[in-house]
Structure formats: C-alpha cells, structure tokens
C-alpha cells in the first residue's frame, strides 16, 4: 500500500470535523476531486456529508464567476449532518473561485490558491482590480499560494503529453495535497484512476504522478507546518457507500418494485434537479424497469397512470414547474384510486425561478394544489440516504392504499451525498400485492375494510372487464354517478382513506425531552441543519427538542400531543411558512415560522441564533 506517512517531522493537530471547499472552473474537475476526497474520507472512517455547487450555466466561459463549479465536503469524527455552514479550507483554482466562495470561508480559514490561475485576465474576469493574493485583503486568512499548474507540469514533464492534458491533471495535484494535509488514504484514488483510464495507460501514469506530487509537496515543502488528523467516527457497523439523494431514490424504487414483485415504470420528462432519477433508473432495465422519456410532464404522469392501471408500479419524477403540470392527472389517479408515486425534487421558484438552487416551497402545492377535494399522501425525505427509505415507503403506501403518493425531495439532498449503510436485501420487508382475479361479485369500487383500498383488477384478467375513469363513481360498482349522497360518500371515502394511513406509520420520534421551552419542527432537507443547531444548543444547556416529519399528510398520530407539550414551537423552513401554516390550522398552536428563501440551505448557525433569540425573548 502506498504509504502516506510524512518523512519529515511536522506538527499534527487533531480535529473533530473539517469542511473543505474545492472550487474552480467547470472544466477544472472539481466535482471529481470532491468525490475522490469523499471516498477517501469515508474509507478513513469519518462520517461526512457533501454538496456540489454546479454553475447555472452549462459551460460558461473559463474564468467567469458564473462558471465556477464547487464541491464542499464536511467530514468528522462525530456525526455529520450537513455539508457545513462555513468552510475551513478553500481550494481555489482561479480568482473567480475565490471571489464566489470567500464569503463562506471561516475567519482564519485556509486558502490554497493555484498561483497560475491568478492571471491578469482571470483576475479581471473575476472582477478583481488587484490580485487579492497580494494586496493584503486576505489577511484574515491563512493563504497558501501554490504553483499547482506548474508543479503538475514539472511532475509530468517527461511524459510528453500535450499541455491541455497536463493542465487537466492539476486537480489531482490539489487532491494529493489535501490528502497529505488531512492524512487520507490515497490508494482508493489510485485504484480509481487505474480503472477509469484502463485503456489509456499514459493517463494513469499522469494522474497518479500528479496526485503523488501533491502529496509529496505537502510533505517536503516548508510552507505547510501542520497536518491534521480527523479520527474515525463511531458509526453503526456495516458496509457503507456514499450516495446522493437521487441515486438513493432510484434504488428505493427498484427495491419497492422488487419487493412487491411488480414491474417498475417511470414516466419522466427531464428537468433539473430531477433528471438524474430518470438517468439512474434507465440503467437498470435488468431489474424489469421501464423508463419512458415522455414528450412532457403530463404525458409522463398519465403514462405512469396507464402503467399502474396495467399492473406496474407507476412512478414519475419532476420538479416544481413540471409538478404544476401534473396536478390535473394526479386528480385522475385520486379518482381512479390507482397506486402512483410522484417524486417532486423541489427547486427555487416561482416559475422557472432558480433551477439549480434548492428550496422547499412545494409543500402547499403537494397537499393543496389540485382542483376540488383530491387528497393524497405526502412524504418528504430528510437526507440523501433517507431518499432510499422514503421511496420505498411511498411505494408501499401507494400500493397498499391504492393511492397517489407525493414524495418531496429537493435539490439539496438530491445532489448532496452522505454515507449510506447498505441494507441486506433479505432484511427488507416485502410489499404484498394481490391483484384481484375472482369474477364472482366483482365490484371495482368495493373496499378493504381496514385500508379502504379498492381492488386492483388489471386488464388481462378473465371475467373482470370493467370501466373506470375521472367522473364521479358510484360506490361499489364504480359506474358513473352524479347523485348527491353518493358524491358525498365518495368524497368522504377518499379523505378517510388518506387519514387511515396515519394508523400505518410510526409515531414521530422526539429528540430531546418530551416537554420543555422550545420544540423545533422540521421536514425535508433541513434535517441536517436543524439537528446540528439543536445539538449545539442542547450542548449549551438549552431546553430544545426536535422532531422531524417525514409524513406530511397525514401527520403521525402523536404529533398534536407533542406540540402541546412545549411553550414555543419553531418551524424553520426554506419557504415562507408552509408547514407552519398547516400545523397552526390543524392544531391551533401558535407555531413560529423561521423562513429563508435564498436558494440555499439553512446554516446551523442561523438556526442556533434563532433558538437563542426565542429562548431569550
């Protein structure tokens, strides 16, 4: 094994957690660098959490601020819940990367700047009049100017590669340097390089050399005097992998389909940040997965409804604007009472809004956004790896209750990643499905006593020929019916069916005391930030408890009781107060909203301050 132990004597400091932000041009390979660092840190046993920060532009001109691509990783020897409020280290490949990300670097933080990137042209593109590495403006930070490009070139000198190729290896130099600094294993990356460039031995050599050059540079040069050690975290034993929310979602759906022995059918139309669900699932045809890239979102969902009608697990995935287009069809699925999962990977809005930024402002739309009384079940994932669970849970409920289920995720957890403890397939529950087959007294709208689900009777079954549709149905027969009493009855059934799901979901767990001064109620991707803030506040001795809702309609049955046990209830949301509105209405508690609509997640710090304020006042 490649030995990454220093030969010289340097000081080693132990840290509980570190946040590194890699930033450069879109073409600088920062995503790759970040991913490699992630794997290496995971293997080093840290807990971690990451977030990529893609530019809104596909490929902006080099050197511009809007072309900066970043990747942030937060790793530690304790439980890590977020990619980090502020970074400890900023690796900046050019001035634009510095300009965009400096504001998130903590005071006294480390800047590793690629000297060659700070050309007059790039400085100008980034809007710097003078070179900030030289003008003293960075005196609050520890600035390391490293000749990344030059040193990489030196290391590869004798390989006779084109200058473009050499330039493209510089991210591995930076990675190597960081590996040195945080004492990470390099072998996984070397193996990755070998595998990736199997057919191009010269690139294996080049990238490996660049990596090692960075590693050795840290060791040899005098400018770095300290290395840091981040001990392994205490994690539940098991096999882990790093996973993004969208990948986890895809796996969750495949698992649900497999465990219910149904074919999985995804109807989708590409949209940021949901497209990866389509990309992922389209690779797994061997799991009996069919993916349909439809002409639009309406075709995507209606095709999924057609597939569910045919006996598949029909699902669709989209984001806000596409979600808006699906509402009429969701109403049809409500009326036809067929299983269907609609994943909404929320993004900044309204309208086209901020497509690459995160937000959690589609809750209202999910719960209320249809014509007339069209109740559906609504769930939300809390973290990237929770996307696996929630996809499975959404499918389970959809099938068992013969209902559409809306699953909310968002850009933050969809693209963010964290270690996922890989389950064993055999440990996962099966989802029982029984297609109706008995023609004797068949009633398409008879109901299961407990769940109120109607039978799933699919075409191809002899003797069950019947018709369903979007007009109001007669109780039991499912025939078209306009009678007043029948309509009320069916409206009630549809509402009651969703309500009954509450009997079938776990109570929400409270973290902290069961009563006290302040309860924080969260949902969705804010889980990490809220958890961090609450942990810190509790560490300071404050009476703060936390609950996090994954079931938003219906709510867990114990929710009301918990709310009433606290003097104050705070609901932090990346919207203008949507969950808060619903809680206030349902439980008549004076829940306090804390809102942020900036296309960004909460900082734990912001929440901590808000908690302080509330407990003070």
């Amino acid at each position, binding site marked *: 094994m490649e030995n990454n132990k220093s030969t010289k004597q340097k000081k080693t400091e132990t840290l509980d957690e570190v946040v590194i932000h890699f930033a450069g041009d879109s073409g600088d390979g920062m995503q790759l660098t970040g991913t490699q660092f992630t794997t290496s840190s995971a293997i080093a046993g840290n807990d971690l959490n990451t977030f990529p920060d893609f530019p809104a532009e596909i490929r902006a001109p080099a050197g511009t601020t809007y072309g900066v691509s970043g990747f942030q990783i937060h790793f530690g020897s304790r439980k890590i819940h977020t990619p980090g409020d502020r970074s400890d280290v900023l690796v900046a490949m050019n001035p634009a990367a510095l300009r965009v990300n400096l504001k998130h670097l903590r005071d006294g933080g480390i800047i590793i700047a690629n000297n060659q990137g700070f050309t007059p042209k790039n400085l100008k593109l980034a809007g710097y009049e003078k070179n900030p590495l030289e003008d003293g403006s960075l005196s609050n930070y520890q600035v390391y100017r490293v000749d990344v490009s030059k040193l990489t070139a030196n290391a590869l000198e004798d390989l006779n590669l084109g200058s473009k190729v050499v330039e493209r290896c510089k991210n591995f130099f930076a990675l190597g340097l960081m590996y040195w600094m945080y004492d990470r294993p390099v072998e996984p990356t070397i193996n990755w390089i070998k595998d990736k460039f199997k057919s191009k031995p010269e690139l294996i050599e080049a990238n490996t050399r660049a990596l090692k050059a960075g590693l050795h540079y840290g060791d040899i040069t005098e400018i770095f005097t300290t290395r840091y050690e981040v001990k392994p975290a205490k994690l539940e034993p098991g096999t882990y992998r790093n996973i993004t929310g969208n990948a986890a979602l895809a796996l969750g759906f495949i698992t649900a389909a*497999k465990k219910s022995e149904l074919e999985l059918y995804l109807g989708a139309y590409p949209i940021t940040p949901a497209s990866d669900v389509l990309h992922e699932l389209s690779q797994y045809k061997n799991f009996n997965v069919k993916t349909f890239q439809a002409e639009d979102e309406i075709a995507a969902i209606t095709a999924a409804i057609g597939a569910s009608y045919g006996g598949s697990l029909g699902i669709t995935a989209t984001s806000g604007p596409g979600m808006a287009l699906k509402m009429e069809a969701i109403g049809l699925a409500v009326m036809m009472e067929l299983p269907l999962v609609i994943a909404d990977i929320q993004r900044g809005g309204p309208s086209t809004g901020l497509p690459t930024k995160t937000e959690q402002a589609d809750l209202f739309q999910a719960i209320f956004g249809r014509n007339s009384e069209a109740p559906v079940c609504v769930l939300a994932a809390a973290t990237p790896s929770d996307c696996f669970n929630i996809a499975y849970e959404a499918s389970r409920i959809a099938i068992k209750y013969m209902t559409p289920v809306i699953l909310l995720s968002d850009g933050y957890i969809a693209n963010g990643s964290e270690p996922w403890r890989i389950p064993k397939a055999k440990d996962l529950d099966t989802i029982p499905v029984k297609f109706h087959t008995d023609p004797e007294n068949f009633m398409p709208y008879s109901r299961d006593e407990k769940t109120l689900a109607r039978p799933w009777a699919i075409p191809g079954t002899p003797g069950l020929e019947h018709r369903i549709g*979007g007009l109001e149905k007669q109780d039991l027969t499912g025939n078209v019916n306009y009678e007043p009493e029948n309509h009320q009855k069916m409206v009630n059934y549809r509402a009651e069916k969703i309500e009954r799901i509450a009997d079938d979901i776990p109570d929400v767990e409270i973290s902290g005391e069961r009563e006290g001064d302040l309860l924080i109620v969260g949902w969705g991707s804010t889980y990490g930030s809220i958890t961090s803030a609450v942990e810190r506040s509790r560490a300071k001795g404050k009476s703060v408890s936390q609950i996090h809702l994954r079931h938003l309609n219906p709510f867990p049955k114990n929710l009301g009781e918990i709310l009433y046990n606290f003097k104050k209830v705070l609901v932090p949301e990346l919207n203008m107060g949507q969950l808060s509105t619903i809680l206030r209405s349902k439980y008549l508690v004076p829940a306090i909203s804390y809102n942020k609509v900036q296309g960004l997640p909460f900082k734990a710090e912001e929440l901590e301050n808000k908690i302080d304020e509330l407990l003070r006042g």
Partner: protein
Amino acid sequence: MADTAVKEQKKYTAKDFQSDQDVRWCPGCGDYSILAQTQRVFPDIGVNKKDIVWVSGIGCSSRFPYYMDTYGLHGIHGRAPAIASGLKMARPDLSVWVATGDGDLLSIGGNHFIHACRRNIDLKIVLFNNQIYGLTKGQYSPTSEFGKITKSSPHGSVDHPFNPVALALGAECTFVARTLDRDPKHLQSIIKAAGEHTGTAFIEVYQNCNVFNDGAFFHLTEKGQKEDNVVALEHGKPLVFGANQDKGVRLDGFTPKIVSIDNGEYSKDDLFVHDENADNDVLAYILSRMTYDPELPTPIGVFRKTQKTTYDSEMQNQVNKAREKRSDGDLDELFNKGETWVVE
C-alpha cells in the same frame, strides 16, 4: 399480437362486446353506428376480450369505453394517447384502442397524438371527427371549416382547420385511414385493418353530430351525393368513383385531377393507382390533400400502411436483453455497486 389471440374455441358475437351500461348519446348521433360496427367486427379481430382495453379522453366520443364490454379507462381531456402509451409499454401483451374526438385528440391532445405517431407505439386510435365540440355544446373544433359560426365564433371562426390525415402522415404515422359513420361495411373493414396493423394505427371517422353540426358529412354519406363526392381507396386499384363508376382521379404532376373514363379519352389505366405501402408516404400525402378540395372527391380507405419497429416492443426488447445479459435484478449487487467500505 400472437399472445392475445382468442384461445377458447368459442367465437364472440357482437353482443359479447356490449356492456351493461345505458348508451347515453343523443338519439341519432353518429357515435351509435361507430359503436355498433365496432361491436360487430370485434369478434373478427381475434383478441380475447380480457386482453382488450379501450382508453379515452373527454368528450361525447370519449364515453365509448363505457359501452364496450372490454377493459376501459375514461381518462382526462386530451391525454388518452399518453395513458394508452403507458399502458401499452407496461403491457405489450394487450390490445390497446383509443376512442377520441376532434377536440380531444387534435386540440388539447395534439401533442400526445403526434408523439404517439412518431414513436409508432402499437395503439389503434379511432378519431370520431364531427368537426365540433359536442360535449361542451357546440364550439368549433380544430377540424371545423374556416368561417364556421358557432357559440364561440359568432362572427365566423378565423381558424384554418387541420387535415388530420396529413398531420398524421407528417408525424410519421405508419397506418392512416379514413372512414364514415354511415358506411357500416367500410367502417368495419377499416377497424379490422387497423386491428391487424402493428404500430400506431390512426382512423379518422367522419361522424355526424346531429345536435350541433348536423349534416356536416352528408355530401359524403347520403345517397345521391356521396357517389360523386367520395372515392374509395383500394390497394393496387385505380381511383374510380361516380354513380356509374365513370370518373377517375389522374395525376397532373403532383396535382390530382378528375377525368371521365367513359368518354374514351381516358381509361382506368391512366388513373392514379393506390399503393398503401409505397416506399414513402408521398403518395398518401397527395391523397390527403384531396380532402378539403371542393373540386375533388374525398378519399376514404387506407391511405398508408407501413412497417417500422414499434416503441413498446423495442422497449420490451431492451428489458429482455438486459435481463439476459446482466444479472437479473440482484438487489444486493445493486446496493453494493461502486466504492464501498466497511465499518466494524
């Protein structure tokens, strides 16, 4: 369609396709005939009832599935082709039919229609074209004639109509036909032909809405008029029409012209000979353009019929191949893909 062939010996009759629902179209509506002919000819398409699904959107015509004793799905306005596409992809073993109207298919549903055609997904789409919105009580539709006066166009519509056959061809449809509600035999034969086609089959049925657009097609359906106004397309045969079969259609360049074939100047040999499955769809397109030309007879019959891979079977093939080639869906393998590490 092999797997859906009727397996029992029993041969269906029209009655087997009649559901227990009261038919609620206006008395005299052309939809009754389309229903009756479909019920009459369905025993001949050789598919088990249990394997047939009728999907529709919204409109008078879209009530059709309720009356067929097969599986049926009465969807939402304009989305029938998309719903049916999803169903057919999920269940290529089924025989999936779409009943739709000129508003449903060509107004709100136009996009799903052209995409179904383009993909050549194996659906049979039956358009009940009455050139009006029936269910919403009489607004003009995308097939209504320019200048039509309706509730929503009291000064005459300024919309030029679609030519549904030309549109379907331009959208790459592989089977395109037209027939008439009041020509039962022809209607039956076209439904049967569509049933036999693999790929998107589009049938435009001219249908009389006797309440809001009465007589729109009487020149094509009523005795004494139809003879001179309709020309029936038959594969391999010249285009002959007229009460005494004394007229024909001839091409002048790309322009069809009517000629007499009983005055010695022209004979059948000079006429345009129909070829359903020509190399390309230009011939069908020329025929489609005869539609609104007041000088020319309106063609009915199969304009075009050609073979191409279907979306649903190709999709199924990919799944089958993947399952053969790669491990057939092992979850543990899937979960453990890529870089993993162990915490002890």
